[in-house]
């Protein structure tokens, strides 16, 4: 057996030498350009015809604060309705029963296929179609009394949201490996229990980022309910500028509140994601 040959010359020892910092010229230049552009925009607004005192005065006005609370209440309730509908419809869509499947597909088709604002107007004006509503022989009422702006907005936004959420949920369920269904069946679970205990918890991990997206969309979609007199923040801001003509100032106020709410929602989504990533993100051994 030959001895191991000595290492060849001409390859110096680099251990202990550091890698030099790169200058990154382009980053500095681009950052400087962006600062310039932002400064120009800020200057334009400062010299534009905006009375900033109105903005600060109405930012925390009672009507505006009530408006943003109404916005949040509606967004949360309509989203909750949308998620419940979405889960039910997604399960129906994936069921082997052709009747359930068709009904689910029809629902999605109908409510995704028409504009949200049209649906809101239809719900609000339901009294034109059905002057009285109720269960025959049990209870009935005038539709105008029942279909308040609140209820019309909740139904319109929630049912529309359900159509979109069902597709998100379906994608989440399809992303779970078929072996998980089989393992659940093999320990004797029937379909609904397997969905509840095994499939949906795993699907949640996948659907939370798109659902966060949908919820942010919902917060802003509530502004459409201003057309049916629901007193959310944009509707209240409009009512103020109809009186004082400070249109831009009040739109800035409303915009500020939307931005603030959405900024708070993003870290909340992160927390939820961590909750449902159990067993996934933990470091491997």
């Amino acid at each position, binding site marked *: 057996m030959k001895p191991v040959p000595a290492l060849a010359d001409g390859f110096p020892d680099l251990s202990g030498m550091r890698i030099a910092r790169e200058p990154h010229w382009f980053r500095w230049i681009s950052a400087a350009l962006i600062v310039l552009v932002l400064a120009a925009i800020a200057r334009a607004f400062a010299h534009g015809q905006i009375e900033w005192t109105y903005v600060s005065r109405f930012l925390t006005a009672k009507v505006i604060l009530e408006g943003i609370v109404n916005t949040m209440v509606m967004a949360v309730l309509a989203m909750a309705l949308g998620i419940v509908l979405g889960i039910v419809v997604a399960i129906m869509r994936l069921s082997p029963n052709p009747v359930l499947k068709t009904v689910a597909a029809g629902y999605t088709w109908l409510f995704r296929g028409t504009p949200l604002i049209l649906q809101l107007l239809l719900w609000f004006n339901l009294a034109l179609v059905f002057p009285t509503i109720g269960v025959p022989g049990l209870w009935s009422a005038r539709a105008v009394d029942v279909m308040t702006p609140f209820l019309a907005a909740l139904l319109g936004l929630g049912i529309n949201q359900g159509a979109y959420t069902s597709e998100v949920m379906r994608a989440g369920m399809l992303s779970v490996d078929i072996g998980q269904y*089989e393992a659940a069946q*093999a*320990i*004797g*679970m*029937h379909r609904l229990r397997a969905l509840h*205990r095994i499939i949906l*918890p795993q699907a949640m991990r996948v659907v939370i980022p798109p659902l966060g997206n949908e919820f942010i969309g919902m917060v802003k979609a509530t502004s459409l309910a201003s057309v049916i007199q629901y007193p959310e923040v944009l509707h209240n801001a409009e009512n103020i500028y109809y009186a004082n003509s400070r249109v831009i100032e009040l739109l800035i106020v409303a915009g500020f509140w939307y931005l603030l709410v959405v900024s708070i929602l993003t870290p909340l989504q992160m927390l939820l994601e961590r909750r449902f990533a*159990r*067993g996934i993100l933990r470091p491997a051994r």
Partner: protein
Amino acid sequence: MTKPLVAIRSVSKSFGEFQALKSVSLDVWPGEVMCLIGASGSGKTTLLRCINQLAVVDGGGIWLDGELLGVREQSGRLHRLSEREIGRQRLKTGMVFQRFNLFPHKTALENITEGPTQVQGRKADEVRTEALELLRRVGLSAKADWYPAQLSGGQQQRVAIARALAMKPMLMLFDEPTSALDPELVGEVLAVMKELAKSGMTMMVVTHELGFAREVADRVVYMDQGAIVEQGRATDVLGAPREERTKAFLSAVI
């Protein structure tokens, strides 16, 4: 005379044009360890899946513990059982999958207790004690609170065996339990299976581990193209095969 635990009679199963099982008949006796060998596509996995009703037979019938699986005979016609009844029948068999299929959002212990608590509705603390005992039996007492992603393939498969045993099945079905494992991890899983065989469990094992079959199996069944070609004692089938197809398969494998 005792009755077979599993009686398979003229079972056929097709996937579209492909005939996975062609009128297969077979008995499995209580306490027997049976190894099913054969090339991929020979129908051995499909046979196992039919017994666990993950696949539905097209023709013929399978009786488990004297009970016809999946269907009920009534005035000359077969009626499919409800999902609930099929679930009840499945509790008599435990299935171990090639890809483990542990629930990734549950710890090793929760994987084992899920079936007994949720499906059988048994008391949580009693089930927990049993699950810990099962984990000890498969050598994983220290990993009770670990998630599947934190375990090696061999450890995951051992948890999967414990999960199946937690339902107290009469029959254990193993579908290529070591095929997805790194070579150095195969031994630990086979050791658990040997221990299980020794304890008297009735087992049907689809495997390519001929060493395991030789050592543990009471009977080896060689399948090809959806039919049983040859069966008998392991020493006979593996050591002195009579059929040409068995000889060809064994020489290709070894």
